[in-house]
């Protein structure tokens, strides 16, 4: 047994990257999740519209943070502000009373606001607010499943994309076929696209199944445009699969690839707003959420499915997702160029010169 233990320790020591990952990963998880795991709602951005808006805005206590006050705006404006995710709460005043509109897709904020409003009547005099009515839009029963299913669909894509794809290049490396690929007349970008194509199809089918199952089994609404959702899903898939290939191309073996995939995957689950609201996270951790693709796809999926948000309203998320996609695609292709054809470029230069000289 001693011989076996010594052998295993020696092998582990040689695989320094795995050791580093094994040490680094738990620390990362602890720090990130420790700070991120919070359902507390410290701020609730709110727009106040209607004739009495100025007066109501003045007396709104924390956690409400007034973003916009417009005495000329009405309920329709408030609804569209919620639909476009400008704010999760809007207060609409009128001669008959005050209506508080809540965005049901922001589950925790909506719940918190409901609870706060129940105690608020003591603090806001009735002559200012009148009778206060609370109305939840988009997910009126505040169903957890309604906001989780779109996110889960994204998470499943993330699993298929990152974990399975991350083994693709490593497998070639370990089977010794990468060298063969390196000398074939295949461009790095073709290798990249070829690698992700089959998983793209599988993940797209997965996506359709999950969304349909969510709608049929859990009555998750699908309010918005299928086209916008599909566009977002395809973009997200591209990013996810690209990340998998990138992970694969920097890993020496399958163990490293899986570890790295998990390092990329778990923070996305925790920090994308899928489970814990981004607004509840301290700024030091929240910024991580803003560089993760899942954050933007969760936003798109919830926006389209629950709120029926338009492409324009989600344009920022699409833009960031596209930027992340370009970065991942660029890095993976560069990485392929480095590991697939280190010699080709260096050799091409003198050859071209020779051809030119002969001409």
């Amino acid at each position, binding site marked *: 047994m001693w011989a076996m233990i010594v052998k295993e320790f020696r092998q582990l020591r040689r695989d320094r990257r795995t050791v580093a990952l094994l040490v680094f990963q738990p620390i990362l998880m602890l720090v990130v999740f420790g700070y991120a795991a919070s359902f507390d709602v410290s701020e609730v951005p709110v727009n106040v519209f209607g004739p009495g808006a100025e007066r109501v805005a003045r007396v709104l206590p924390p956690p409400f943070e007034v973003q916009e006050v417009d005495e000329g705006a009405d309920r329709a404006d408030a609804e569209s502000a919620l639909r476009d995710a400008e704010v999760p709460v809007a207060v609409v005043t009128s001669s008959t009373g005050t209506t508080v509109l809540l965005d049901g897709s922001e589950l925790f904020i909506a719940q918190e606001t409901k609870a706060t409003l129940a105690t608020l009547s003591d603090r806001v005099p009735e002559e200012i607010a009148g009778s206060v009515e609370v109305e939840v839009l988009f997910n009126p029963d505040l169903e957890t499943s309604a906001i989780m299913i779109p996110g889960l669909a994204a998470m499943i894509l993330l699993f298929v994309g990152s974990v399975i794809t991350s083994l693709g290049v490593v497998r070639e490396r370990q*089977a*010794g*076929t990468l*060298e*063969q690929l*390196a*000398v*074939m*007349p*295949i461009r790095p970008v073709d290798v990249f696209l070829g690698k992700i194509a089959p998983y793209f199809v599988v993940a797209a089918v997965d996506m359709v199944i999950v969304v349909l199952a969510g709608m049929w089994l859990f009555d998750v609404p699908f309010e918005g445009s299928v086209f916008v959702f599909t566009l977002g899903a395809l973009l997200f898939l591209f990013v996810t699969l690209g990340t998998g290939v990138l992970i694969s191309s920097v890993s020496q073996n399958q163990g490293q690839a899986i570890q790295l995939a998990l390092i990329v995957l778990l923070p996305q689950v925790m920090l994308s707003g899928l489970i814990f609201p981004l607004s509840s996270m301290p700024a030091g951790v929240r910024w991580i959420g803003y560089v993760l693709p899942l954050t933007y796809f969760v936003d798109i999926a919830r926006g389209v499915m629950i709120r029926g948000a338009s492409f324009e309203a989600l344009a920022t998320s699409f833009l960031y997702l596209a930027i992340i996609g370009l970065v991942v695609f660029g890095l993976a292709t560069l990485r392929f160029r480095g590991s697939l*054809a*280190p*010699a*080709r470029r*260096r*050799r091409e230069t*003198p050859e071209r010169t020779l051809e030119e000289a002969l001409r």
Partner: protein
Amino acid sequence: MSWGVHDVTVRFGEHLALDAVSLEAPPGRVTGVVGGDGAGKTTLLRCLVGAVAPDGGTVRSPEARRIGYLASTSGTYPDLTVEENLTFSATAYGVSPARARTRVAELLDRTGLEPARDRLAANLSGGMRQKLGVIRAMVHRPELLVLDEPTTGVDPVSRADLWWLVARAAADGAAVVLTTAYLDEAERASWLLALDGGRTLTQGTPDEIAAAVPGTIRSVSRRPDGEAARRSWRRAAKWRVWSPAEELGAGGAELVRPDLNDAVTVAALATELETAANGGGPR
């Protein structure tokens, strides 16, 4: 157009993998590269196919589309069938589907792999897998066919088949460069380059190399003592002793006509003795 390398030097960090090595690979010729482990054979081939950029010297090789390469690591995808492996290569090298079908059928037929057409490469015997690797490398009729140790770990019958395949490719006009660690089969090549420690030991036709051995070689039944021990090596049940100067054998010693195996061994010994004489220790 003749392919090849001229004065190629490759360093991996401090290690000098190739030291000013030159090799011509004209069309229609099977050029063999021989040498022990770590001699630089694989590095030379990788230079030729563009997988390694040389630190010095020049490489003349066709564009990637017209090179066929079997790496020493593995030439096949274990989770694809024989036919799928070949089709993948043909497509990657731009062979039209119709021509690929004909070529695959022809190669499978020629190598006796036809019955294994639908078998996964992982389930092939070592010899069959090597054959598949070789025909995969030549499926697109490359102008330069580069095979790294195609016969290593292959039984004698399959080795003969593989050499036949290689000879056919050369007869069809390809410039073939292959490495082997087996000197007995290297004689089948039309031209040989012997490497040792990244340097050229000798090159020429197998006959030229055998004929160019300086001094004499004797076959004795016991290993000689003293200084001569450093110039001796085992051949089957007997020992060979090389004398750099012409010297007629005495005491029952038998002069032998050197073959390729002797010639390459002598070339390596001569380099080693020269290095030692110049103050460097044996490598």
